[in-house]
């Protein structure tokens, strides 16, 4: 530890920008505090009471002064707002080539799943220079995934998926904290983010028990839970076709239309009666309690691999299948 640091390491693409805003605000705070303190010090000294019956001097209260010290702070905060909003928007906009990682918070550990099947507890290995999209949820209470060195933090809320992203810029090991109070071992729900050079990361991926990829695990669950009984690829089943579902606009029985995203799919498995697809009966049973949050993520990953109206295909767990359109290639990168 060199000297006395006031900043965590800057290990992500936006850490420096966050620090710059911080430094500006520190300077602003120091400036105004010193200004006020100096003025008070000077006035207190110069106008200290010298005798009991002295009268205060004649002071004009010009309106212009009041307007000035409303207008100037207003201008300053407008600048800060746009600066911080711009930073925030870029921190919210997930790059198209981000690699998905799935995180489930549970009292009191972080369960991490890579698409390729690696599972980690309280640790997340990532390659340097590749944007990582964190898909967060919780099994029980609200947690919060916090990596100080990346300046990234996002609540993991039960019943919904939240998203954050980062691009690690420096190899190393960094703190991971839970930042939303969650009970007894809240301060024990900590771990590490391990950022590796791409080659070492590939080695790490290859080594160790990888298990099934997320999507392959989802296919296994899909069959074990007999989803295919109703969601048949030949569209003869009682349930709607799932091919190409993610991102599609779905028409519901009540006339509304929704875009099928991850939360829609999760809800359809856990609370199927919430949204009935037009033209189908509300007969799907609920799987709440029968599938874990990780299982839900696996099923969603599997459904993501089901291709368009041309019919279902096996998920890309094996070797590449031959030339694919650029769009499909991009999609492959995302799902790996």
């Amino acid at each position: 530890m060199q000297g006395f640091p006031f900043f965590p390491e800057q290990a992500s693409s936006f850490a420096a920008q966050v620090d710059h805003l911080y430094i500006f605000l520190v300077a602003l705070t120091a400036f105004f505090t010193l200004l006020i303190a100096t003025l008070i010090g000077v006035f207190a000294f110069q106008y200290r009471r010298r005798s009991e019956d002295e009268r205060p001097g004649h002071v004009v209260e010009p309106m212009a002064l009041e307007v000035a010290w409303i207008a100037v702070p207003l201008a300053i905060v407008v600048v800060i707002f746009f600066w911080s909003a711009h930073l925030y928007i870029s921190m919210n906009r997930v790059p198209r080539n981000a690699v998905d990682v799935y995180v489930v918070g549970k009292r009191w550990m972080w369960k991490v799943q890579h698409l390729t099947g690696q599972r980690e507890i309280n640790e997340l290995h990532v390659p340097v220079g590749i944007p990582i999209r964190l898909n967060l949820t919780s099994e029980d209470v609200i947690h919060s995934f916090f990596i100080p060195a990346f300046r990234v933090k996002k609540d993991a809320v039960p019943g919904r998926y939240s998203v954050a992203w980062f691009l690690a810029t420096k190899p190393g090991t960094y703190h991971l904290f839970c930042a939303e109070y969650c009970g007894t071992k809240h301060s024990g729900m900590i771990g590490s983010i391990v950022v590796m050079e791409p080659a070492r990361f590939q080695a790490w991926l290859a080594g160790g028990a990888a298990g099934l990829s997320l999507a392959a695990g989802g296919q296994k669950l899909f069959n074990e839970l007999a989803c295919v009984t109703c969601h048949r690829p030949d569209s003869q089943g009682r349930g709607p076709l799932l091919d190409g579902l993610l991102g599609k606009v779905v028409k519901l029985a009540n006339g509304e239309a929704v875009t099928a995203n991850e939360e829609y799919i999760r809800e359809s498995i856990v609370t199927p009666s919430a949204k009935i697809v037009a033209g189908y009966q509300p007969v799907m049973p609920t799987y709440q309690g029968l599938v874990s949050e990780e299982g839900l993520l696996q099923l969603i990953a599997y459904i993501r691999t089901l291709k368009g109206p041309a019919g279902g295909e096996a998920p890309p767990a094996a070797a590449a299948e031959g030339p694919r359109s650029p769009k499909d290639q991009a999609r492959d990168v995302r799902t790996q």
Partner: protein
Amino acid sequence: MASADPHPALAHHFESLEVQKESATLGMWSFIAQEVLFFGAFLLVYTLHRNLYYPVFEACSHHLDLKLGAFNTAVLICSSLTMALAVHAAAVGKKRQIVAWLLATVLLGSVFLGVKVVEYHQKWEDQLVPGLRWGAAEDVGRELHLQGADVDHAQLYFSLYFGLTGLHALHMIVGIPIILWIAFRAHRGEFDAAYNTPVELTGLYWHFVDIVWIFLFPLLYLIGHH
């Protein structure tokens, strides 16, 4: 300065009866403003969940006894009428009438509460009281014509039903003894044309309670009715 003896109702800390009356009135309006926000928070929770689970809310609403609800609405509106007549009688100093109309208000309010007891009892019998007596999922589902997770969401509806109508009933249970006390004071001749603010403000409170019901009735009983 006061020209004659101060009015017997003048409290020691007010300079004049006028100030006292205005203060009491502003106080009651402030109190009602606070109540609007209190009920408002619950109504917000209601609105959000009704939007999320409209078909469930509709099914549960149909399960309520519309006749009893409508009857109660009529009863409460009449009680506001009798209360208004009491306030008018106080303004013109007619002591006997004040007492009579106040007692009529109490009577009507009690009828309202009695009907609510009947309704709550019905829910108890039907095992539709969340947390205290909520039937098995299939039974509730059959009762309400719902299935699956919708039965869980029906709990949300009935929690809101009991919460909102229960809070409302609580306000009436507090209001009725107050009206009786005001009636007693009226009987003792405490109010005249110069001073009848307590009657007025009790009336204000009672009208507020009525208005809350006028919101609750369509929100709870009339979902999906055209």
